[in-house]
Protein backbone atom coordinates (compact mmCIF):
# COMPACT_ATOMS: atom_id res chain seq x y z
CA UNK A 1 0.00 0.00 0.00
CA UNK A 2 1.29 3.43 -0.91
CA UNK A 3 1.66 5.82 2.00
CA UNK A 4 1.03 9.51 2.02
CA UNK A 5 3.87 11.67 0.81
CA UNK A 6 5.60 13.42 3.69
CA UNK A 7 5.71 16.88 2.10
CA UNK A 8 7.11 18.52 5.25
CA UNK A 9 10.47 17.32 3.97
CA UNK A 10 10.48 20.27 1.56
CA UNK A 11 10.61 22.54 4.60
CA UNK A 12 13.57 20.65 6.03
CA UNK A 13 15.42 20.90 2.72
CA UNK A 14 14.73 24.62 2.58
CA UNK A 15 16.24 24.99 6.07
CA UNK A 16 19.25 23.03 4.81
CA UNK A 17 19.81 25.52 1.96
CA UNK A 18 19.42 28.39 4.39
CA UNK A 19 22.03 26.87 6.75
CA UNK A 20 24.53 26.39 3.91
CA UNK A 21 24.02 29.91 2.57
CA UNK A 22 24.18 31.58 5.99
CA UNK A 23 27.34 29.76 7.07
CA UNK A 24 29.25 29.09 3.87
CA UNK A 25 27.71 31.24 1.14
CA UNK A 26 25.50 30.64 -1.89
CA UNK A 27 28.35 28.92 -3.72
CA UNK A 28 28.18 26.13 -1.13
CA UNK A 29 24.46 25.65 -1.90
CA UNK A 30 25.26 25.24 -5.60
CA UNK A 31 28.22 22.96 -4.93
CA UNK A 32 26.11 20.76 -2.67
CA UNK A 33 23.32 20.52 -5.24
CA UNK A 34 25.81 19.57 -7.92
CA UNK A 35 27.14 16.76 -5.70
CA UNK A 36 23.58 15.64 -4.97
CA UNK A 37 22.60 15.58 -8.66
CA UNK A 38 25.73 13.70 -9.70
CA UNK A 39 25.39 11.08 -6.97
CA UNK A 40 21.62 10.59 -7.06
CA UNK A 41 20.50 11.12 -10.66
CA UNK A 42 22.98 8.81 -12.38
CA UNK A 43 20.14 6.39 -13.09
CA UNK A 44 18.07 9.10 -14.82
CA UNK A 45 21.03 10.36 -16.85
CA UNK A 46 21.68 6.81 -18.01
CA UNK A 47 18.04 6.36 -19.02
CA UNK A 48 18.00 9.64 -20.96
CA UNK A 49 21.20 8.62 -22.75
CA UNK A 50 19.67 5.27 -23.69
CA UNK A 51 16.05 6.16 -24.40
CA UNK A 52 15.91 9.92 -24.88
CA UNK A 53 13.83 12.70 -23.36
CA UNK A 54 10.76 10.50 -22.86
CA UNK A 55 12.51 9.28 -19.69
CA UNK A 56 12.74 12.81 -18.30
CA UNK A 57 9.10 13.41 -19.27
CA UNK A 58 8.14 10.26 -17.38
CA UNK A 59 10.14 11.27 -14.30
CA UNK A 60 8.79 14.84 -14.18
CA UNK A 61 5.21 13.61 -14.72
CA UNK A 62 5.56 11.10 -11.93
CA UNK A 63 6.96 13.41 -9.26
CA UNK A 64 4.70 16.38 -10.00
CA UNK A 65 1.60 14.16 -10.20
CA UNK A 66 2.43 12.35 -6.95
CA UNK A 67 2.71 15.66 -5.12
CA UNK A 68 -0.35 17.17 -6.85
CA UNK A 69 1.42 19.99 -8.64
CA UNK A 70 -0.09 21.84 -11.59
CA UNK A 71 2.11 21.44 -14.61
CA UNK A 72 2.35 20.87 -18.32
CA UNK A 73 5.04 19.12 -20.33
CA UNK A 74 5.70 19.60 -24.02
CA UNK A 75 8.26 17.46 -25.75
CA UNK A 76 9.54 17.65 -29.31
CA UNK A 77 10.99 14.16 -29.87
CA UNK A 78 14.51 14.19 -28.51
CA UNK A 79 15.12 17.78 -29.51
CA UNK A 80 13.51 19.71 -26.71
CA UNK A 81 11.42 19.34 -23.59
CA UNK A 82 9.64 22.13 -21.71
CA UNK A 83 8.13 21.81 -18.25
CA UNK A 84 5.78 24.59 -17.22
CA UNK A 85 5.00 24.52 -13.53
CA UNK A 86 1.97 26.57 -12.55
CA UNK A 87 1.86 25.39 -8.95
CA UNK A 88 5.03 23.98 -7.44
CA UNK A 89 3.93 21.50 -4.76
CA UNK A 90 7.01 22.13 -2.63
CA UNK A 91 6.60 25.91 -2.43
CA UNK A 92 2.84 25.72 -1.98
CA UNK A 93 3.16 23.18 0.81
CA UNK A 94 5.74 25.24 2.71
CA UNK A 95 3.63 28.38 2.40
CA UNK A 96 0.51 26.55 3.50
CA UNK A 97 2.26 25.11 6.57
CA UNK A 98 4.03 28.34 7.43
CA UNK A 99 7.56 27.03 6.89
CA UNK A 100 10.16 29.61 5.94
CA UNK A 101 11.06 29.32 2.25
CA UNK A 102 14.76 29.83 1.41
CA UNK A 103 15.12 32.94 -0.77
CA UNK A 104 16.48 30.96 -3.73
CA UNK A 105 14.76 27.63 -3.13
CA UNK A 106 14.31 27.18 -6.91
CA UNK A 107 18.06 27.04 -7.48
CA UNK A 108 17.77 23.29 -6.90
CA UNK A 109 16.02 22.83 -10.26
CA UNK A 110 18.53 25.07 -12.04
CA UNK A 111 21.58 23.14 -10.79
CA UNK A 112 20.03 19.68 -11.13
CA UNK A 113 18.87 20.36 -14.70
CA UNK A 114 22.30 21.73 -15.61
CA UNK A 115 23.97 18.56 -14.36
CA UNK A 116 21.50 16.36 -16.24
CA UNK A 117 21.83 18.53 -19.38
CA UNK A 118 25.64 18.59 -19.30
CA UNK A 119 25.81 14.83 -19.06
CA UNK A 120 23.25 14.15 -21.80
CA UNK A 121 24.19 16.87 -24.35
CA UNK A 122 21.31 19.26 -23.70
CA UNK A 123 21.34 22.95 -22.89
CA UNK A 124 19.34 23.73 -19.81
CA UNK A 125 17.43 26.96 -19.29
CA UNK A 126 15.13 27.92 -16.48
CA UNK A 127 12.97 30.89 -15.57
CA UNK A 128 11.30 31.07 -12.18
CA UNK A 129 9.41 33.60 -10.12
CA UNK A 130 10.26 32.06 -6.70
CA UNK A 131 6.53 31.97 -5.96
CA UNK A 132 5.89 28.51 -7.32
CA UNK A 133 5.80 29.10 -11.07
CA UNK A 134 8.58 28.28 -13.48
CA UNK A 135 9.54 27.12 -16.94
CA UNK A 136 12.29 24.55 -17.33
CA UNK A 137 13.71 23.74 -20.74
CA UNK A 138 16.26 21.31 -22.11
CA UNK A 139 17.28 21.72 -25.76
CA UNK A 140 19.62 19.52 -27.81
CA UNK A 141 23.14 21.00 -28.13
Amino acid at each position, binding site marked *: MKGKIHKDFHG*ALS*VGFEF*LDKNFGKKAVEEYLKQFAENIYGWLIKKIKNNGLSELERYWSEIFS*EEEGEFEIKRRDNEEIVLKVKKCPAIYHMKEKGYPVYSDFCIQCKVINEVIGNKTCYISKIKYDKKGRCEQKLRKK
Partner: protein
Amino acid sequence: MIPAKEFILAYNELFKFLHRKYGKKAVVNFWFYISDNFLKNLDKLVKEKGIAGMAEYWTHTLTEEKAVYTMSVGPDYFEIFMKKCPSVGIMNKRKVKKYPYYCEHCVLYKRIIEKYGFVYKIKFIDKEKGVCKIKIHKKREKNGDNC
Protein backbone atom coordinates in the same frame (compact mmCIF):
# COMPACT_ATOMS: atom_id res chain seq x y z
CA MET B 1 12.04 19.92 -7.76
CA ILE B 2 13.67 17.43 -5.48
CA PRO B 3 10.60 15.36 -4.64
CA ALA B 4 9.75 14.71 -1.00
CA LYS B 5 10.31 10.99 -1.56
CA GLU B 6 13.96 11.74 -2.41
CA PHE B 7 14.53 14.02 0.57
CA ILE B 8 16.34 11.36 2.60
CA LEU B 9 18.85 11.03 -0.21
CA ALA B 10 19.29 14.80 -0.27
CA TYR B 11 19.67 14.87 3.51
CA ASN B 12 22.30 12.12 3.42
CA GLU B 13 24.22 13.95 0.67
CA LEU B 14 24.08 17.17 2.69
CA PHE B 15 25.62 15.45 5.72
CA LYS B 16 28.36 14.00 3.51
CA PHE B 17 28.98 17.36 1.83
CA LEU B 18 29.22 19.25 5.13
CA HIS B 19 31.54 16.66 6.67
CA ARG B 20 33.85 16.53 3.64
CA LYS B 21 34.09 20.31 3.30
CA TYR B 22 33.87 21.56 6.88
CA GLY B 23 34.15 18.60 9.26
CA LYS B 24 31.76 16.78 11.57
CA LYS B 25 31.23 19.85 13.74
CA ALA B 26 29.45 21.50 10.80
CA VAL B 27 27.16 18.47 10.49
CA VAL B 28 26.29 18.59 14.20
CA ASN B 29 25.70 22.35 13.96
CA PHE B 30 23.33 21.66 11.08
CA TRP B 31 21.36 19.16 13.19
CA PHE B 32 21.04 21.79 15.91
CA TYR B 33 19.96 24.34 13.30
CA ILE B 34 17.23 21.97 12.05
CA SER B 35 16.14 21.40 15.62
CA ASP B 36 15.89 25.12 16.36
CA ASN B 37 14.45 26.27 13.04
CA PHE B 38 12.40 23.46 11.61
CA LEU B 39 11.00 21.29 14.41
CA LYS B 40 8.81 24.01 15.84
CA ASN B 41 5.75 21.78 15.56
CA LEU B 42 7.37 19.14 17.79
CA ASP B 43 8.48 21.85 20.21
CA LYS B 44 4.94 23.20 20.45
CA LEU B 45 3.41 19.75 20.93
CA VAL B 46 5.83 18.75 23.70
CA LYS B 47 5.50 22.12 25.40
CA GLU B 48 1.70 21.99 25.40
CA LYS B 49 0.93 18.28 25.70
CA GLY B 50 4.11 16.60 26.99
CA ILE B 51 4.16 12.86 26.27
CA ALA B 52 0.82 12.98 24.45
CA GLY B 53 2.38 15.57 22.11
CA MET B 54 5.33 13.26 21.39
CA ALA B 55 2.91 10.44 20.55
CA GLU B 56 0.96 12.77 18.25
CA TYR B 57 4.08 13.98 16.45
CA TRP B 58 5.71 10.60 15.87
CA THR B 59 2.48 8.81 14.98
CA HIS B 60 1.95 11.38 12.21
CA THR B 61 5.51 11.40 10.83
CA LEU B 62 6.24 7.68 11.14
CA THR B 63 2.91 6.76 9.53
CA GLU B 64 3.55 9.07 6.57
CA GLU B 65 7.07 7.72 6.27
CA LYS B 66 5.81 4.12 6.42
CA ALA B 67 8.09 3.09 9.27
CA VAL B 68 7.85 -0.32 10.95
CA TYR B 69 7.84 0.37 14.67
CA THR B 70 6.13 -0.07 18.00
CA MET B 71 5.35 2.77 20.33
CA SER B 72 4.83 2.50 24.10
CA VAL B 73 3.30 5.40 25.93
CA GLY B 74 2.82 5.74 29.68
CA PRO B 75 2.08 8.60 32.07
CA ASP B 76 5.80 9.38 32.49
CA TYR B 77 7.52 7.57 29.65
CA PHE B 78 7.54 7.34 25.88
CA GLU B 79 9.36 4.73 23.80
CA ILE B 80 9.79 3.91 20.16
CA PHE B 81 11.23 0.61 19.04
CA MET B 82 12.18 1.25 15.41
CA LYS B 83 12.29 -2.06 13.60
CA LYS B 84 12.75 -0.68 10.08
CA CYS B 85 13.81 2.93 9.89
CA PRO B 86 12.30 4.38 6.70
CA SER B 87 15.35 6.56 6.00
CA VAL B 88 17.80 3.69 6.21
CA GLY B 89 15.41 1.57 4.12
CA ILE B 90 15.35 4.16 1.33
CA MET B 91 19.15 4.44 1.26
CA ASN B 92 19.60 0.67 1.24
CA LYS B 93 17.05 0.31 -1.55
CA ARG B 94 18.72 2.98 -3.68
CA LYS B 95 22.15 1.56 -2.83
CA VAL B 96 23.58 4.96 -1.97
CA LYS B 97 26.65 5.42 0.19
CA LYS B 98 25.33 6.22 3.65
CA TYR B 99 26.90 8.98 5.70
CA PRO B 100 28.67 6.92 8.40
CA TYR B 101 27.11 8.95 11.22
CA TYR B 102 23.67 9.21 9.59
CA CYS B 103 21.73 7.69 12.50
CA GLU B 104 23.19 10.23 14.92
CA HIS B 105 21.02 12.96 13.40
CA CYS B 106 18.19 11.73 15.65
CA VAL B 107 19.93 13.56 18.49
CA LEU B 108 18.24 16.66 17.08
CA TYR B 109 15.10 15.64 18.99
CA LYS B 110 16.99 15.52 22.30
CA ARG B 111 17.53 19.27 22.18
CA ILE B 112 13.79 19.89 22.13
CA ILE B 113 12.56 17.11 24.39
CA GLU B 114 14.97 17.82 27.24
CA LYS B 115 13.94 21.49 27.35
CA TYR B 116 10.64 20.39 28.87
CA GLY B 117 11.80 18.23 31.79
CA PHE B 118 12.38 14.92 30.04
CA VAL B 119 15.42 12.71 29.51
CA TYR B 120 15.97 11.50 25.94
CA LYS B 121 18.10 8.45 25.17
CA ILE B 122 18.67 6.66 21.89
CA LYS B 123 20.30 3.27 21.42
CA PHE B 124 21.43 2.21 17.95
CA ILE B 125 20.95 -1.53 17.65
CA ASP B 126 21.73 -2.03 13.95
CA LYS B 127 22.65 1.05 11.94
CA GLU B 128 22.83 -0.91 8.67
CA LYS B 129 19.28 -2.26 9.01
CA GLY B 130 17.84 0.81 10.72
CA VAL B 131 17.00 -0.67 14.11
CA CYS B 132 17.07 1.54 17.20
CA LYS B 133 15.28 2.39 20.42
CA ILE B 134 14.31 5.83 21.66
CA LYS B 135 13.51 6.05 25.38
CA ILE B 136 12.14 9.20 26.92
CA HIS B 137 11.11 9.60 30.53
CA LYS B 138 10.23 12.41 32.87
CA LYS B 139 13.21 13.75 34.75
CA ARG B 140 13.02 12.46 38.31
CA GLU B 141 13.03 15.10 41.02
CA LYS B 142 16.02 14.78 43.33
CA ASN B 143 15.07 13.89 46.86
CA GLY B 144 16.84 16.48 48.96
CA ASP B 145 16.17 15.11 52.44
CA ASN B 146 18.54 12.11 52.18
CA CYS B 147 15.91 9.69 53.55
